[in-house]
């Protein structure tokens, strides 16, 4: 590696440091190259002996306190975001969620209703006499409610995931950029 290559690489790796500090560090290495050249070494030799610029840069950056994390909102911003969110919820969010939950409840009700009908048809022969038709009807209703039930279990899982995501999103909007 040549002198300029080394210094450029180091400069890039130190990009997070303040300008003055970075220039100061680079000056140290420029001097090192200068003195090394005076004592008869080639640029490649000096760079080789100095070591990996990325590794060196890490030693400068690691020892420092990291810059304050981005994000996080002030209380005032949080209240503002919260108010906007409340309006959104009242006008759009809550009606849509209520509608979805209503559909969800009624679908579960349908599953239970069909299951109940299957049960009634199953015990009906005891009172109405033996009709194979009743048994077949009962079994097919049982199958139907089973299938719907399986579908509903999936739907329920997704619904709760969605609700959870909705709540997390609220939290994020109010608190600002929360890092995971």
């Amino acid at each position, binding site marked *: 590696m040549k002198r300029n290559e080394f210094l450029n690489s180091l400069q890039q790796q130190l990009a997070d440091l303040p300008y003055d500090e970075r220039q100061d560090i680079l000056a140290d290495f420029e*001097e*090192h190259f200068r003195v090394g050249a005076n004592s008869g070494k080639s640029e490649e030799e000096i760079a080789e002996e100095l070591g990996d*610029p990325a590794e060196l840069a890490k030693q400068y950056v690691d020892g420092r306190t990291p810059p304050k994390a981005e994000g996080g909102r002030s209380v005032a911003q949080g209240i503002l975001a919260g108010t906007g969110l409340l309006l959104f919820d009242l006008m759009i969010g809550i009606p849509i969620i209520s509608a979805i939950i209503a559909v969800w409840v009624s679908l579960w009700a349908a599953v239970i209703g069909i299951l109940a009908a299957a049960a009634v048809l199953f015990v009906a022969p005891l009172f109405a006499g033996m009709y194979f038709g009743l048994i077949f009807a009962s079994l097919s209703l049982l199958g139907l409610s089973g299938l719907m039930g399986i579908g509903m279990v999936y739907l329920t899982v997704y619904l709760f995931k969605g609700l959870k995501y909705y709540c997390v999103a609220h939290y994020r909007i109010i608190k600002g950029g929360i890092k995971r």
Partner: protein
Amino acid sequence: MNIQFKKGVLELCVLSLLFEGDRYGYDLASSLSETISISDGTVYPILRRLKEEGYVKTYLQESTEGPPRKYYSLTESGRKEKIQLHQEWDHFVCGVNKIIEGGAEL
């Protein structure tokens, strides 16, 4: 080797070299890398840290070859730190040697 440990040891090495007299960066780097196998560049982050902690100060001095060089010199607290670290080091090495040589008796 554990990085923190190595850092501490290298700090002691730099402080000890400067304890004997002022030196410039290249000189320190080659003295260190000749004796213990580290890359020359390692000395500069250490010097910067020592300066931030107030153990070392720098000044520019004319050289016969080219532009002035940055010299490093120990401050009063740097001298105290060197003595303190040196004692800790002796104590530590002494303990480690005891364990290495006669671990069974401990």
